[in-house]
């Protein structure tokens, strides 16, 4: 096959490219330029977008012996990922930009362009397996990225190749060193690539301005103030700067975010417990599930979160997901990924719209 490898400049995509060559594919490497002004990201070095990363990707392509190009996707990235990230926070939700980037950039903009230009598939260095078209977890549970890929449709997965799923990160690094790839020791990327200094609240404040409001407890009493609901995530404990101590002396957490009246509701840890999730915009990309009768499966609600059993019923385009064991601090906007009961194969995913504590009303 003629395949295009998305090369970030990191160790994973470099080894993925080398393995694609070994597998007999006709391989072309492409580095995605996602920052409109790469210079502003030079000091970031958080896994993509820097000039150093572009150079590392180029050198890896040289060593592997494949053609290498840079594709400018900065405008698409800003529109589909960065602007969406800001808008989601402004709406009181907690988006996952990596997932969004996979859905809209790597396996949409890049895949579409690659297919039109005569390529059969896009290869990435994601840690996940594709088994007869089914998305499965990586053998490395610490590095598994099936969660951020679960948003892809069957058609997108049919044109994706993930050569690293059967290897641990350690094995990938060893292989990179053996192949003479200079990125073998490069640190893992983390955090959000377009927020170079890691200050998400500052990034959002710069774009959304100051929108002051109150922090209230579950009885409605004002216990503090803030300068923008976007600085908060459900489940957050640090940085609340509460003026009034909790009556029981226990720490308090963000329970819900209401950007319309600029109110953050805080409460005790047990009040964070979620027993039921309503999720929308489902993507079914795995083995068939019984949408009429409902089914039991394993679910994961954040990128590196716990997996819990759940009963799922489907009501048109909304999923009602009852968690067998309650989970703490589930934020609207995050994806819920449904796995087979053994937790290994992705059945599908959906976007969390509302959550509910047992016996209480749904909350956004």
């Amino acid at each position: 096959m003629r395949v295009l490898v998305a090369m970030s400049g990191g160790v994973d995509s470099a080894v993925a490219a080398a393995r694609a060559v070994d597998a007999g594919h006709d391989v072309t490497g492409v580095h995605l330029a996602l920052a409109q002004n790469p210079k502003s990201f030079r000091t970031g070095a958080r896994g993509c977008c820097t000039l150093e990363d572009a150079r590392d990707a180029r050198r890896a392509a040289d060593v592997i012996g494949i053609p290498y190009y840079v594709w400018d996707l900065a405008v698409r990235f800003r529109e589909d990922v960065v602007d969406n990230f800001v808008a989601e926070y402004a709406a009181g939700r907690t988006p996952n930009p990596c997932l969004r980037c996979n859905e809209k950039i790597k396996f949409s903009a890049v895949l579409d362009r690659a297919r039109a230009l005569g390529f059969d598939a896009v290869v990435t260095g994601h840690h996940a397996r594709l088994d007869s078209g089914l998305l499965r977890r990586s053998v490395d549970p610490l590095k598994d990225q099936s969660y951020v890929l679960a948003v892809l449709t069957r058609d997108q997965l049919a044109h994706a190749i993930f050569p690293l799923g059967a290897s641990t990160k350690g094995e990938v690094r060893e292989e990179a060193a053996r192949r003479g790839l200079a990125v073998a020791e490069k640190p893992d990327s983390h955090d959000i690539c377009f927020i170079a200094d890691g200050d998400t609240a500052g990034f959002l404040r710069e774009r959304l301005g100051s929108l002051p409001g109150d922090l209230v407890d579950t009885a409605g009493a004002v216990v503090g103030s803030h300068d923008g609901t976007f600085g908060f995530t459900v489940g957050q404990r640090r940085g609340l700067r509460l003026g009034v101590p909790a009556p029981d002396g226990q720490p308090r957490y963000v329970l819900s975010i209401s950007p319309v009246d600029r109110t953050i509701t805080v409460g005790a840890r047990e009040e964070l417990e979620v027993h039921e999730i309503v999720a929308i915009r489902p993507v079914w990309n795995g083995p068939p599930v019984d949408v009429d009768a409902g089914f039991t499966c394993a679910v994961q609600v954040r990128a590196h979160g716990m997996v819990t059993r759940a009963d799922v019923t489907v009501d048109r385009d909304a999923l009602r997901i009852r968690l067998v064991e309650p989970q703490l601090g589930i934020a609207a906007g995050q994806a819920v990924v449904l796995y087979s009961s053994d937790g290994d194969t992705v059945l599908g995913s959906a976007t969390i719209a509302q959550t509910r504590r047992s016996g209480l009303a749904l909350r956004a």
Partner: protein
Amino acid sequence: MPHYLDHAATTPMLPEALEVMSAHLRDLGNPSSLHAAGRAARRTVEEAREQLGRALGARPSEIVFTGGGTEADNLAVKGLYWARRTADPRRVRVLASAVEHHAVLDPVAWLGANQGALVEWLPVDRLGRIDLEALESAIERDPESVALVAVMWANNEVGTVQPIREVAAIAGPYGIPVHSDAVQAAAQLEVDFGASGLATMAVSAHKIGGPLGVGALLVGRDVTVEPIVHGGGQERDVRSGTLDAPAIAGFAVAGEIAAAQREVQSKRLAGLRDDLVAGVTAAVPDVVLNGDPGPEPHRRLPANAHFAFPGCEGDALLMLLDAKGIACSTGSACSAGVAQPSHVLLAMGLDAELSRSSLRFSLGHTSSDADVAAAVAAIGPAVERARSARVSVEASRHR
């Protein structure tokens, strides 16, 4: 078999230049040393200087060797600005064409941002040619305040040749120095420095069949430029650094051969280029030829063809042609390798979309009919594919 149509980026070394340079790489001696080995190296440099002077219409003493064309342009722009402003602090205006190579564009902008220069970009017409009346009126508005004028001899992207002698004739009566980047022109046009009226002129060895990493700034005898690289003062106290005698020798041989063969070669390349334009136009009827349609050599570089392919992304086309073994260029690239819309095409009045759809094919001394035929054969299918890619990506945009 690969077909190289990117000679404006760099052209293969002429065998004679390669031979001379290789031979001198065995030589021992720093041209600034006083002993026999040093004198021998110095002799190599000085003979090369004379040889290059004959090729470029310059006195040997007017040649300042540099580490390439970009350094020569920087030395001219900054060096003239500082020297002129030191002589008279009123001289802070820098007039430069809007289509300069980044090697001039960026130092001019830097002078504006950091050194108090007042920068005025001189407009060009749809063909990329400078507006002489705009230059004249810019100077006449306050001639005493102009530090320098910079207008390239021929444009590196679209190949438009500028009326350099007219530019020099306009600035000359006011004593305003004119710098010209002749990096692209030197191999294809007669660039007689002595007859040009220029104060300074930049040339680069690897664009004329010499080695990479060496160039020269031609500096008129009466012209003062402040150094930008300080040290031993090896080159007229204007440029420091141990001279690369082997590269300079190769540079001079290339310059001599390029000058001797210019007329024949330019005619041959113009013929090939016309075939290329005709073939591409037949394959892609709505293609747009950017720049001046000619005739040469007064209006357009003979070896340059620059096209806009409506509905295509230039970088997709480049990739598709590269896969077929055909090397061309989208124009200037930034350090991360992302093609920005060309400032040259924008200054000529093309919109950003059309400018992003552009490709440059440039020929040189090794170009053949087979190269042109291969490019013509590949361009139709590549354009068709790049157009469908564009359409499908746009269609998916808000899916």
